[in-house]
């Protein structure tokens, strides 16, 4: 890959002095879907947070290049305008801010930043209706405050709805499958798949292989103790499903 959309090189990151990411290398090209799997606590959300600009992490070494820019230098809102989107593992409830108002403010802030014209109320609502249909979201959800009183599944669906509205170039989905029943999982996957195209890259983080039956990745990487310990094609996910993560733990690997 000559010029990948996202290039992570030797990335190290720490939280409160504790090193969580211990040297990540990863290249993601436009149009590709990469799955990142790994046991709980391996650093998946930390990686997602560092990419989106969460400031509770300290990057101690390495580089991240996104569309030719130094991603780590950019403010979270500038990353968003440049096309980076994170679907949160734990979406935040924001009572007092309307869902649709928030989305329109976000979309128009991004458009302004990119020098594009803002969407007026009518065009925005039309787009929102289309996307709501795609995710089988009803009016009562989108008219409420952001995620307020939503069930776990509704929150995840709302994340993908936001993604569908904002049309990012790099979508990072952090355990979007957790807390979803099979029907909701199918709807969410269908929403994600509808957004797959040659321009868009996705980083699909999951603990379980199940999601990857519906969102079929091009590559699978296994994260363990802050490092990518194995990469492969979609078959790797099935192998993990069968054998678990134990055989890939660094200690186990070293012992072989």
């Amino acid at each position: 890959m000559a010029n990948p959309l996202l290039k992570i090189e030797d990335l190290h990151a720490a939280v409160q002095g504790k090193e969580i990411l211990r040297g990540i290398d990863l290249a993601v090209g436009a149009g590709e879907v990469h799955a990142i799997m790994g046991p709980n606590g391996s650093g998946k959300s930390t990686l997602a947070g560092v990419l989106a600009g969460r400031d509770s992490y300290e990057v101690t070494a390495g580089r991240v290049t996104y569309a030719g820019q130094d991603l780590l230098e950019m403010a979270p809102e500038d990353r968003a305008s440049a096309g980076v989107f994170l679907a949160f593992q734990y979406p935040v409830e924001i009572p007092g801010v309307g869902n649709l108002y928030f989305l329109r403010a976000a979309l128009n802030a991004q458009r302004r930043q990119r020098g594009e014209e803002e969407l007026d109320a009518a065009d925005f609502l039309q787009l929102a209706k289309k996307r709501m249909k795609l995710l089988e979201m009803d009016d009562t959800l989108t008219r409420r405050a952001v995620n307020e009183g939503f069930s776990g599944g509704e929150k995840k669906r709302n994340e993908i709805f936001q993604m569908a509205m904002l049309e990012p170039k790099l979508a990072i989905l952090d355990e979007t499958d957790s807390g979803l029943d099979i029907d909701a999982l199918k709807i969410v996957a269908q929403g994600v798949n509808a957004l797959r195209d040659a321009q868009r890259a996705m980083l699909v983080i999951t603990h379980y292989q199940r999601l990857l039956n519906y969102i079929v990745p091009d590559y699978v990487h296994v994260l363990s103790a802050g490092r990518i310990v194995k990469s492969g094609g979609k078959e790797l996910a099935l192998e993990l499903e069968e054998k678990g993560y134990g055989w890939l733990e660094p200690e186990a690997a070293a012992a072989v």
Partner: protein
Amino acid sequence: MSAATLTAPPAPAVYTAPDAAYERAFAAIAARSGEPAALRQLRRSAFAQLQQRGFPTSKHEEYRQTNLAAVLQRSAFALPERPGAATLREAERAAQPGAAFGGPQLTFVDGHFTPELSRLKSLPAGVRAGALLAANDAGDDRLAPLGELADIGGENTMVAFNTAFFGDGAWIEIAPGAQVDAQIEIVHVATGGAGVATMAHPRHLILAGRGSRAKVVETYLSLNGAAHLTNAVTEIFVAENAELEHARLQQENTAAYHISAVHSRQAADSRLRLHALTFGGALTRNDVVTVLHGPGAEALLNGLYVAEGRQHVDNHTVLDHAEPRGASREYYRGILDGQATTAFRGRILVRPDAQHTDAVQSDKNLLLSSDCTANADPQLEIRADDVRCTHGATFGQIDEEALFYLRSRGVGAEMARHLLIFAFAAEALGRLNPSPLRTRLETELFSRWTGLTPPEGAEASGG
């Protein structure tokens, strides 16, 4: 007499007597002819109470955070004359927010009822309204319930102060069964006297008949930046199964002193929604005393205070559950910035007869600077055994996770912060029933923090 008594230090001054200027001002009122004898007698008793006790100092347990004596004695406030035509024209513009709603309106300028700025023609069916004092000329004894709830002999001597000095007020009676959709407005404008700080003592009486439903809004405004004092008292009687929503909106200038007392009594199965919305004032002290006086009564006390610079806001509430199966919801919240100071004291009294009371109280504070101070002091006094009563107070900064969430979607850091401040206030506004007032406040607060007008078609606050 024991030695101990002889050597005991003098009790700290809990009250200080009003100075001579207030005596002279009262003498002028007492000499005034034309008021009914009963009212003149009530005023005299009230002033005697005030003289006997005086203004509360910070040595008084209920005024620890707010030394009213210091404010009231620094220099005496004067009772202003009825303003002239030019001032009234200016006041008319200030009173516009109310006018825009188009419903009935009673306007008071410097405490004087001002019919030319009021709208009392073609009142909605079931509504009678007018000036408390003017009404008496009609031979209708509207003053009879005055002071029944707001006792001139009580610890809160501001009630006696008001009773002695009040210029006028609104009298609103909702007929039994009347369903009134229009919002009834009481608008106060202080015009700021030349050279001398003025005072006004509005006195309102609201009677909601059995099974009626209505909305009343009191708004307090200043015409300019001059210091002035407002000391308002409102008495509210809610009959059986009536529903009344009452909002007090304080938007006076930041040099003003604003003192208020709202006393209400609810009969069986009535529903009262009281909103205390404080934005203005150098110093504000609001007292709310509501008695759930019949079984199954429900009360909502919804407070929002926004204070910055050196503003001080003190809210004291008493929820008196006197009868069984009462439910009260008390939600106060404040946004503090600069060196603002606020206090909240919420007393919940559950009397022995008030079994199956369900009371919830919370006070939440959003602290935007490191120099502001918020105090919360819940006081539960529960004398019945089968009750549910919870309370809590929080003091926090902007939620970092919410901030990151908004920014990760492309909203700039400043805007994200402002949206979250607005959101905190919007939750309180969300407890007002949908009304022109609520819409107006949402718009005003949204602009206050974001500098933008909220977009049409997408409700900024959701819901």
